[in-house]
């Protein structure tokens, strides 16, 4: 992006080398930093106009794109206000409008949801999803908030100590990681009694059974959820919760860390959406 000098190695974006052809790359890629900065004493509109001018957009196209972008992030009303008065969420949304004005096929976001209230996060994630799905863009997000990443990402890569140690879809990662390992099932059913335990142990696949308060934890050789659920219900128990552990990104992430023991600087999850080559 022309922000940092390479120390070694090479990068290629659509066949362009950022070190040799920075302008081509810069016009293909947009970047939303985690605490996106705008000129405080200019209005949101003026900030976007500056971006458009830097991109060399002709005024008519620029105005049109700016209005569309503002409408999309619901900032049309606040457009004339100075950015200094904006809340963090609004600034972040303005950041996305900024990306839309540039309209690149590849977007890089760094911790887009940091420091925003839950409702704001939900809206922002929706918006990001829309950008990727509707306009068929590639979006790369780097984030520590794994649950959010899991919600919106198609592909994840896990970085430990600056090296990508795993990448793929979340299911792929889970399978890859858990292949040959015991599966952990969480079960809550009522009433919890001896009959239930016996019922669970009647499966050959169940190797071990543990009780923790309300939750029964079953270590299984394979995924027996469908059969187990059916059996529990037909036996007259009320099935309240049945969950296969190990397939949430949080779990995957943790496992990788345990594997890469020792100190790590920063773990990051990068993700790409419907990507084109």
């Amino acid at each position, binding site marked *: 992006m*022309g*922000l*940092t000098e390479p120390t070694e190695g090479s990068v290629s974006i659509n066949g362009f080398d950022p070190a040799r052809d920075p302008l081509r790359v*810069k016009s293909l890629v947009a970047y939303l930093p985690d605490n996106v900065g705008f000129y405080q004493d200019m209005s949101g509109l003026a900030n976007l106009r500056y*971006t458009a001018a830097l991109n060399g957009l002709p005024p008519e196209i620029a105005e049109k794109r700016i209005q569309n972008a503002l409408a999309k992030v619901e900032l049309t009303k606040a457009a004339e206000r100075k950015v200094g008065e904006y809340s963090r969420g609004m600034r972040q949304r303005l950041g996305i409008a900024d990306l839309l004005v540039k309209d690149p096929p590849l977007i890089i976001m760094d911790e887009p949801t940091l420091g925003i209230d839950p409702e704001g996060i939900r809206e922002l994630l929706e918006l990001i999803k829309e950008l990727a799905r509707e306009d068929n863009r590639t979006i790369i997000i780097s984030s520590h908030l794994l649950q959010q990443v899991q919600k919106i990402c198609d592909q994840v890569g896990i970085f430990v100590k600056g090296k990508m140690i795993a990448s793929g879809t979340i299911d792929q990662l889970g399978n890859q990681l858990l292949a040959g390992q015991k599966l952990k099932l969480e079960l809550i059913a009522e009433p919890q009694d001896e009959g239930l335990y016996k019922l669970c142990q009647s499966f050959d696949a169940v190797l071990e059974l543990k009780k923790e308060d309300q939750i029964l934890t079953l270590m299984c050789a394979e995924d027996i959820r469908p059969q187990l659920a059916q059996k529990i219900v037909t036996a007259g128990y009320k099935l309240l919760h049945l969950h296969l552990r190990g397939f949430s990104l949080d779990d995957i992430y943790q496992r990788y860390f345990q594997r890469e023991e020792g100190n790590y600087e920063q773990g990051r999850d990068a993700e790409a959406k419907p990507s084109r080559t």
Partner: protein
Amino acid sequence: MSKVAMPKLNLQELNNLLQANRGLAAVVKKEVSDHLSGKRFLILTLLVVAACLASLYIAATSIRTAAASQESSFVFLRLFTTAGANLPFSFTSFVSFLGPLLGLIMGFDAISGERDRGTLSRVLSQPIYRDALINGKFIAGVIVLAIVIFGLGFLTGGMGLIIFGVPPTLDELLRILAYLALSVVYISFWLALSLLFSIVFRQTTTSALAGIALWLFFSLFAIFLVGMIADAVCPITDSNNLEQVMANARLHQGLSKLSPNTLYDEATVTMLNPSVRALGVVMLEQIYGAIDAPLSFGQSILLIWPHLVGLIAATLICFAAAYFIFMRQEIRA
């Protein structure tokens, strides 16, 4: 085949040239409007305007006696150079003293401020070269400076015209224009310097302090320091010894010309005081027999040409250093 290829190549070159300056106009436009609408700039300009009006007042009260005491003409130029008895300030000394401050204040947070607010990474990730940003900021600064300096000069000139009713001759007008242009160059040097500091220092306050420290050094302490060094290197043990006195004076002059302040002040004096015939050590025998008449405009320009080149060179060195550091700098937060 080659006939077809030729224009294509030229088009490509033209395209490259345009690409290199992409976004420059946008940056210049934004920076100029930022400067002009900023409160900081307003305050400083008001300060400079007030100083100039004060100097005009001083000149108005004492110019008659000054003009009468010396039989020379060039009354209009005295408007800029005359200092009063109770207030030892003229227009030129105000500009020479406050001008650097104007340049420093316009540039000290140019880059570090953008970095603090997080706008730098966003702006630079747009399809422009880094050059465009720094060039744009410098050009915008120079444009604004030129507006202020020429505005002030003409304001003072106009007021003087009203008060005294003495129209300037062509020679005087040219001298004033040259002086104002010189001032813009001089203040641009300080602008380039503060731009450099704003890139080198991550903290805005550090950059401002560094600029002000250097300004104070050049305008106050450099004079003493130069004298001390000259006396230490070439001490005068016998004031009748011509060799010693000359060596000392030469070193003194040479060293003090390293300071942009000295360059500017000497150039100003030459420009606005046509009777200044030489800068530097002059022997009595060289003056002996010379006709005491004012120099023509062209001759004065010739006299200060090295100064002007020196100032421009100093500006360019600062700017080039800023450029070099900025090109390789890590921008990521």
